[in-house]
């Protein structure tokens, strides 16, 4: 139990990378990259978890209550937003690639063409 979350994070990263390197479709590759990125959220939140503690929101909590680590949650939040923007930018590159080269299969993109 004490290492399971970390191993799950590692597994998700490897699964995403496997999908990425065996991909035959760039749109699917971008999806696999999103999977690989989601491992970082799991890792961050696993590091910050504390047993028998609540979320770091003190609206209706005494100020000395034990809470989970808010720093990693803030990092994960940033991570998610940046991940979404990277996905969007890569997908627009894929659309552009399809327009100029007529394919989204990385195997068929052998050389640079003007």
């Amino acid at each position, binding site marked *: *139990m004490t290492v*399971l*979350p970390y191993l*799950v994070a590692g*597994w*998700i990263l490897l*699964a*995403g990378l*496997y*999908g*990425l390197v065996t991909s*035959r*479709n760039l*749109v*699917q590759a*971008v*999806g*696999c990259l*999103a*999977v690989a990125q*989601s*491992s970082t*959220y*799991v890792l961050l*939140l*696993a590091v*910050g*978890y504390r*047993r*028998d*503690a*609540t*979320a770091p*929101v003190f609206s209706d909590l005494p100020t000395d209550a034990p*809470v*989970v680590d808010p720093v990693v*949650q803030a990092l*994960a*939040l940033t991570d*998610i*937003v940046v*991940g*979404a923007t990277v*996905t*969007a930018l890569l*997908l627009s590159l*894929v*659309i552009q690639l*399809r327009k100029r080269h*007529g394919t*989204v299969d990385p195997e068929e993109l052998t050389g640079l063409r003007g």
Partner: protein
Amino acid sequence: MTDTLIVIALLLTATAATAAALTRDPVRQAVVLALLGLSLAVLFTVLQAPDVALSQLGVGSAITPLLILLTVRKVNRRETQPQEGDDDRPDRAE
């Protein structure tokens, strides 16, 4: 009790992630990615991170799959395109 929930959520997330990485068809992958986003949101909720869960719910299970579906629609359309449709008239006014 909480530990059991966390283990279930972790295994659910790992399964969904593996399925998403192994799905070859981008349209199906978008659906599996939405499921992955949902299971990640559940995991973050049991890990006491409601802020992150909310943003994962919005981004991971709505925006990212939608972007992928739109890209697939754009990328796959050209094969079926050159038909003489009357809705194909140019519209420069916009």
